[in-house]
């Protein structure tokens, strides 16, 4: 019988390790959340609101529908509404998204809290897996349920799947239906800090119809929010921007942010230097994205470089935003699988491991390395892998 090469054992073991790690966290997260069922309040077994950050979406939806859309920016109003929803005193949480996202979550409070939480996470997860399945048409695509960004998004009760749907879906549609694909990309403007590289990529790739779609969708969404919610929430949002920027200076959040800025701050670099290095990285990554889009390689490379660039270029992202990084994993993983690039597959699994340790939990013997920016390192390594595997200039749409 032909012996099995050692790297295949290693690959199989890593895969099993990562599935069981993600599975453990999903199980424990579900158990902790379900602990609030049947209680008089909605605090879960870890004493935070069931569904974590989702409480802000649901409460904002209720306040916007029953009081006024601008009231979601009021600390007192939101604190009172959250106390009423949760049935216990919790630290107040205010809304700090643009009114465009308020428009998207507006229907959430039409359903009771738990049903709404399940609908939100369930429907966005289905969309996310559908997109992943289209990028990597393999029966194992459902394993992305255990992807660190996906597990984090479940644990945080957040919008990472939605961002991945807009980015991945838009890129998938772009080549055949440029305006429609661009429109989907434009919806990512609900998180401007994740969307600013998109127009640069589209312009560099001379994808004018997609760019028109993206600009139209972003402007249409802003106008729709203006029409439905009025001018007041926009004024409050703009007034509130300094508070949001202030979140970058809170050390307790750095460990949850997979950005270069937060990684440097956590490593003890001074804020000024960290910001300067982040800016340099933003410009550098922006140039790489523009260059790759100008060369017009096939979608897996354009998409992977843009998705990785989105997180590497922004100073403001959280662990659940890493759901976006499932896109380059699916694209690069599928290319590695199709072409028999076993080393790439193992590298992707190792990057997945580092991200899991960073965003879910560092194994106890490695606790001393808890502040090491594993995820940032993994993202940079993936960008290099994508660039290394970029098709040769002769195979590309444009000469360099």
């Amino acid at each position, binding site marked *: 019988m032909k012996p099995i090469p050692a790297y295949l054992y290693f690959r199989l073991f890593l895969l099993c*390790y990562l599935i069981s*790690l993600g599975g453990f966290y999903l199980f424990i997260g579900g158990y902790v959340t379900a602990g609030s069922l049947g209680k008089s309040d909605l605090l879960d077994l*870890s004493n*935070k*609101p069931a569904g*974590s950050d989702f409480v802000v979406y649901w409460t904002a939806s209720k306040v916007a529908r029953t009081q006024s859309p601008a009231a979601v920016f009021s600390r007192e109003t939101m604190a009172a509404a959250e106390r009423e929803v949760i049935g216990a005193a919790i630290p107040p949480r205010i809304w700090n998204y643009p009114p465009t996202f308020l428009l998207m979550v507006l229907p959430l409070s039409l359903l009771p809290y738990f049903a709404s939480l399940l609908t939100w996470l369930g429907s966005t997860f289905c969309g996310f897996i559908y997109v992943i399945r289209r990028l990597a048409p393999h029966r194992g695509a459902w394993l992305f349920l255990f992807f660190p960004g996906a597990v984090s998004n479940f644990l*945080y009760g957040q919008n990472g799947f939605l961002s991945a749907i807009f980015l991945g879906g838009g890129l998938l549609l772009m080549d055949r239906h440029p305006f429609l694909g661009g429109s989907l990309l434009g919806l990512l403007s609900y998180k401007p800090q994740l969307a600013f590289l998109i127009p640069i990529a589209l312009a560099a790739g001379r994808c004018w119809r997609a760019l028109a779609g993206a600009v139209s969708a972003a402007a249409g969404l802003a106008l729709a929010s203006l029409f439905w919610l009025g001018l007041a929430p926009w004024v409050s949002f703009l007034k509130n921007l300094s508070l949001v920027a202030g979140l970058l200076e809170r050390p*307790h*959040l750095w460990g949850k942010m997979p950005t270069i800025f937060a990684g440097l701050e956590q490593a003890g670099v001074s804020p000024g230097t960290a910001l300067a290095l982040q800016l340099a990285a933003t410009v550098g990554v922006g140039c790489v994205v523009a260059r790759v889009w100008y060369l017009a390689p096939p979608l897996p490379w354009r998409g992977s470089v843009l998705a990785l660039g989105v997180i590497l270029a922004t100073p403001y992202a959280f662990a659940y935003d890493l759901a976006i990084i499932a896109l380059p994993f699916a694209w690069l993983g599928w290319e590695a699988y199709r072409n028999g690039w076993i080393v790439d597959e193992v590298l992707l699994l190792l990057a997945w491991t580092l991200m899991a340790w960073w965003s879910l939990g560092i194994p106890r013997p490695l606790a001393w390395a808890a502040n090491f920016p594993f995820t940032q390192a993994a993202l940079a390594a993936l960008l290099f892998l994508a660039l290394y595997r970029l098709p040769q200039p002769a195979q590309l749409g444009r000469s360099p």
Partner: protein
Amino acid sequence: MKKMVLLVAVVLSLMINLTALTYGGVDLGKWQVFGTEPEKPK
């Protein structure tokens, strides 16, 4: 043979994760951005 290798990999990874999580502990209270009180500035 293949099934045996798969079984060993599954059992081994479950044991490693279970040991690491039991030994290291899981703090699920930390999975939130909103509502976390800021620490004192450095």
